[in-house]
């Protein structure tokens, strides 16, 4: 696909630069110049000219069954590959159906370029058929957006959009293109450089600030690293490993940071926060220096912020200056790309003696591993995930939906590889997992992609099973079926006296449903069936749905209740 794209690109480059092109054809050429070989989308009236240009372009278009599916797929593609995800939707409902997906990418800093069709320029503002003010709607949920008003602006806008989406703190960019502009013709000039004086992200850290941070780290006795999604977006996994090993500092990774540091590493403490490990939370509460790398002190990580890391000074390294001091006072703020910052710090910091501290933390890790009460009859959801982790050796790409299964996946799957946990962290979007798995499998055709979902979440974008079947994507779908919206049920159990208001839920027969899509369907109802079901499913060459009928009222533990501090965890056996 890439080679073909380059060939097409070269062909186009040979054309005289001034050759007239339609807006839609310009768009294709811009895609090729940005290295785009796959786009996700759904056609409609206002994007017919764009789809007409796609018809002959060497770009693989994946048609979803709902625009939300297309944009989450683009998002999953971006997360798994590190490239910019591209999505196309039509005007009006096509564009508004993208809104959740755009917000999802915005919250998790995922680079997307989203093309929406718009009604023709002459009809804008008249409440025309399928008109929606999508630039107005997406202003608060995009890094930037554009309404194209002149066909000649398309190359510049596209170049800027890709640059804005992937540079600095990544995020989604929307480009709204009225239909007449897609049809209009103009001379194609792809700019060589980008002129955006008002957008100059700081990549390299300030030298004197780096020395202060280095000094603080050298003086720390009980340091801990809190690594977030920023480590992945900066591709700083290797630097993180060197840094932690050289200085012997334990590492906890947030939900977005999972996979950024290998789970098998002795210095890894697991995830912190509401459903984090006892070790990670204790280590944070007892540390004297917390080094945050591309994390944003989300409330699910910190618990009660007033009592978060009470003895620690905070080093906060982030590429987005607005994150520094937003939630927590920082003694050592450092605006920088994480990779550059770590490269400098690895050279400058003098290792100190953290042996006693590391020994203490490792003792907690041994004493308080994540556990659950296993049984011999019923299937425990955690057990299923443990088995998946063992079978794949922690090396598959895991996509999740949102809820209990998501937290169990974060806890019991041992992520050894970066960009292998695709999950909706900030927005918490149910229905993200299935389309995200599609995007990941398209971007990483040779890797095993597993969706871990629940019976609630899977039904939120279940129409995308048709996309999987059509594209013959060998995605392994695991449904942990407890016939409940489990996470809400858990909160109702703990805070609302088991008044299960609208959380019991009856799903379809997932095995029959799989069959309807010509997908292999398997079901396990007892513990002894788990292993064989997984092995059968994983050995199947095509897509498969594996449904596990799990314990209905299992809780995700440990659990830091909202408003409590990280040392006030409800642990297994203390319910």
């Amino acid at each position, binding site marked *: 696909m890439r080679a073909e794209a380059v060939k097409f690109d070269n062909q186009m480059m040979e054309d005289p630069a001034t050759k007239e092109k339609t807006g839609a054809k310009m768009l294709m050429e811009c895609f090729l110049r940005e290295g785009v070989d796959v786009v996700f989308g759904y056609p409609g009236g206002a994007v017919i000219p764009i789809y007409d240009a796609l018809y002959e372009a060497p770009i693989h278009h994946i048609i979803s069954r709902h625009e939300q599916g297309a944009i989450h797929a683009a998002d999953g593609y971006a997360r798994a590959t590190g490239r910019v995800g591209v999505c196309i939707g039509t005007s009006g409902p096509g564009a508004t159906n993208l809104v959740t997906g755009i917000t999802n990418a915005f919250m998790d800093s995922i680079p997307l370029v989203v093309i929406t069709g718009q009604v023709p320029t002459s009809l804008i503002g008249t409440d025309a058929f399928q008109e929606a003010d999508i630039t107005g709607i997406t*202003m*608060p949920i995009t*890094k*930037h957006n554009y309404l194209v008003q002149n066909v000649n602006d398309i190359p510049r806008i596209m170049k800027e959009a890709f640059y804005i989406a992937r540079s600095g703190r990544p995020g989604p960019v929307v480009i709204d293109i009225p239909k007449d502009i897609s049809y209009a013709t103009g001379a194609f000039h792809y700019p060589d450089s980008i002129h955006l*004086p008002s957008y100059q992200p700081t990549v390299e850290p300030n030298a004197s600030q780096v020395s202060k941070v280095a000094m603080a780290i050298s003086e720390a006795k009980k340091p801990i690293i809190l690594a977030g999604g920023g480590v992945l977006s900066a591709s700083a996994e290797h630097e993180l490993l060197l840094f932690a090993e050289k200085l012997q500092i334990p590492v906890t990774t947030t939900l977005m940071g999972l996979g950024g540091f290998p789970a098998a590493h002795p210095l890894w403490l697991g995830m912190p926060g509401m459903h984090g490990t006892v070790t990670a939370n204790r280590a944070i509460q007892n540390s004297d220096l917390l080094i945050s790398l591309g994390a944003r002190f989300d409330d699910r990580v910190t618990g009660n912020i007033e009592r978060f890391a009470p003895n620690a000074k905070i080093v906060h390294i982030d590429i987005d*200056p*607005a994150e520094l001091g937003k939630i927590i006072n920082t003694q050592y703020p450092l605006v920088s790309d994480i990779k550059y910052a770590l490269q400098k710090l690895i050279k400058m910091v003098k290792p100190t003696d953290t042996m006693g501290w590391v020994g203490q933390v490792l003792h907690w890790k041994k004493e308080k591993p994540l556990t659950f009460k296993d049984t011999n009859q019923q299937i425990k959801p955690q057990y299923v995930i443990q088995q998946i982790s063992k079978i794949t050796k922690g090396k598959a790409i895991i996509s999740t939906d949102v809820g209990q299964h998501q937290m169990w996946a974060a806890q019991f799957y041992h992520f050894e590889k970066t960009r292998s946990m695709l999950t909706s962290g900030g927005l918490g979007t149910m229905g993200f997992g299935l389309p995200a798995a599609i995007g990941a499998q398209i971007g990483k055709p040779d890797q095993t992609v597993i969706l871990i979902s629940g019976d609630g979440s899977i039904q939120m974008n279940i129409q995308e099973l048709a996309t999987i079947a059509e594209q013959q994507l060998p995605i392994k779908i695991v449904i942990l079926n407890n016939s409940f919206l489990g996470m809400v049920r858990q909160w109702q159990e703990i805070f609302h006296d088991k008044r299960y208001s609208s959380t019991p839920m009856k799903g379809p027969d997932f095995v029959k449903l799989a069959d309807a899509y010509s997908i292999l369907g398997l079901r396990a109802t007892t513990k002894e069936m788990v292993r064989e079901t997984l092995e059968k499913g994983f050995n199947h060459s095509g897509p498969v749905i594996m449904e596990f009928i799990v314990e209905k009222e299992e809780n995700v533990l440990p659990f830091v209740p909202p408003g409590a501090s990280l040392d006030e965890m409800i642990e297994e056996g203390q319910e």
Partner: protein
Amino acid sequence: MKHTLSIIVNNQAGVLTRIAGLFNRRGFNIDSITVGRTEEQGLSRMTIVVQGDQRLVEQVKKQLHKQIDVHKVMDITNEPMVARELIMIKVKASPTTLQEITNLIEPFRAAVIDVAHSTITIQATGNEEKLNAIIELLRPYGIKDLVRTGFAAIQRG
């Protein structure tokens, strides 16, 4: 505490919405906002007065700065600066009170810009203190309408 922010932005459709929307969704309350072109082609200056403590204003500034259309954000509250607002006040006036009102506003260098048979309209510019003083002086006569532009501010020197 009130902060006066001076912001240079691209003079483009939608930029005002972008900035105002940002204040709204981050829960920052705008006291007043003025916008106008600058001496440089393609750029506008916004003067925004916002209520809040230092930490909130820091966050406002950083969030503004993240906008691709924002070139520069300056908190000029504690800088030497001149801030001016223009107000227009429509006051009830009869032939007997007309002269009295005209005399009253003279020390403020305010001007009568319209006279109708039962009202007069007065224009005044100045800082907040002065404008509040005029308004209070005129209130007893019966203010029918009051229009304020919001503050525009410029650094001294």
